[in-house]
């Protein structure tokens, strides 16, 4: 949820209504805001140029704007909405540089792999222990036919996806597996915490930076990783899904798989969104499941859109069955794979 400051100035019509109906007019403003998914954190009546000031929480800019528009259309107030950032975060943002670091090619060396193997319980497993009350893996046997290098793809629901996913991947693939991560979020220079340092992300978490909007240049490093025999983990939706749908896949995975002739292993993750949905900071423990699907290898001559469509269809099929099962029984689905 994002915070906004909403300033309001009463029209003469609004003042008339307030005189006629008393406090009901003010209460109706509050109720109208709440009807539009807005939560009021604080509210003040002011003397001066503005008449009211509300500190509100709304899911996003659009919903905040929709709520204020509804106020304006009621013809009783003029509004000005200011997206707000709490001050400690603002201070951190000022300190940060927009410069990013990486990729670090040393992350595939034997010592980096050994460090990652040793740090795995601290970096990943402890979160899985803490927040996954149950972790089911369906289709484990399918890993038997998978040899490095390969590309693993998954639906993207939460920052906890990789914790769920790594637990479903055998160690021989996991210790040589690299995730693409947004450079402007995970590889910023100038942060204080050790766990947010770009070198830590490369060494311990196995991430490499992806420049948003970087075009085909963003595929150079993953291609190099595949050439070195490393495995890749990618979320072809590009970003975390906000609704229950599976977003369209971007073509990056298909381009890599076709050019380097490597298999793609789709893994569908279930239940992770309930633990920590996008836009929230608190995590709620719950059950999760990973469905390992049949590895996909593309024939020579397959086009990029065809390959993307095939990957999407494979995931969409499981996604649809799981949604159907959830809708039918409200209990966790069993393996549809």
């Amino acid at each position, binding site marked *: 949820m994002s915070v906004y400051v909403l300033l309001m100035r009463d029209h003469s019509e609004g003042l008339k209504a307030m005189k006629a109906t*008393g406090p009901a007019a003010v209460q109706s403003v509050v109720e109208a805001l709440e009807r539009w998914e807005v939560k009021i954190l*604080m509210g003040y009546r002011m*003397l*001066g140029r*503005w008449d009211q*000031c509300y500190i509100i929480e709304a899911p996003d800019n659009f919903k905040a704007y929709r709520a204020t528009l509804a106020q304006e259309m009621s013809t009783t107030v003029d509004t000005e909405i200011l997206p707000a950032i709490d001050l400690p975060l603002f*201070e951190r943002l000022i300190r940060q540089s927009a410069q990013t670091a990486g990729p670090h090619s040393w992350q595939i060396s034997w010592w980096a792999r050994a460090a990652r193997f040793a740090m795995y319980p601290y970096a990943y497993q402890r979160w899985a222990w803490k927040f996954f009350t149950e972790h089911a893996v369906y289709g484990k046997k399918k890993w038997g036919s998978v040899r490095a290098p390969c590309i693993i793809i998954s639906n993207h629901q939460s920052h906890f996806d990789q914790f769920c996913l790594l637990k479903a991947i055998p160690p021989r693939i996991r210790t040589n597996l690299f995730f693409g991560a947004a450079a402007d979020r995970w590889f910023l220079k100038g942060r204080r915490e050790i766990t947010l340092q770009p070198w830590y992300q490369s060494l311990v978490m196995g991430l490499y930076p992806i420049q948003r909007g970087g075009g085909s240049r963003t595929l150079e490093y993953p291609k190099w990783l595949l050439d070195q025999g490393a495995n890749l983990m990618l979320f072809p939706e590009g970003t975390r899904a906000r609704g229950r749908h599976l977003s369209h896949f971007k073509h990056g995975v298909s381009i890599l798989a076709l050019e380097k002739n490597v298999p793609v292993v789709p893994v569908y993750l279930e239940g992770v969104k309930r633990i920590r949905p996008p836009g929230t900071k608190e995590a709620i423990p719950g059950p999760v499941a990973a469905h390992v699907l049949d590895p996909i290898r593309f024939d020579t001559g397959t086009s990029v859109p065809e390959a993307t469509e095939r990957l999407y269809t494979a995931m969409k099929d499981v996604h649809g069955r799981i949604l159907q099962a959830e809708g039918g029984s409200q209990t966790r689905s069993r393996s549809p794979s």
Partner: protein
Amino acid sequence: MAAYIMLSTLTDEGRKTLKERPERLGEVNKEVEAMGARVVAQYAVLGGYDFVNVIEAPSNEVMARLSMDLGSRGTIKVTTFPAMSIERFIDMMQPSSDKQ
């Protein structure tokens, strides 16, 4: 303590200072408290203002001194509005017969 909404805008000098020393944000809060007021909520905002502060102060005089002091540094321009909580305003709007 009365409530006040302070809308502030950074001057060019203020932007430079903040970029060089972001910790000034926290220091200003301590200075506000030293003057007898209290910062209840504080946000950096996008739009016509740079910061919105909800401040509690014992009187208009304290708040006037605070506004003058902050403005005199040349780093921000402030506009301060006396305010009351919406609950208190609703209560105030009730006809006196309802309150009894």
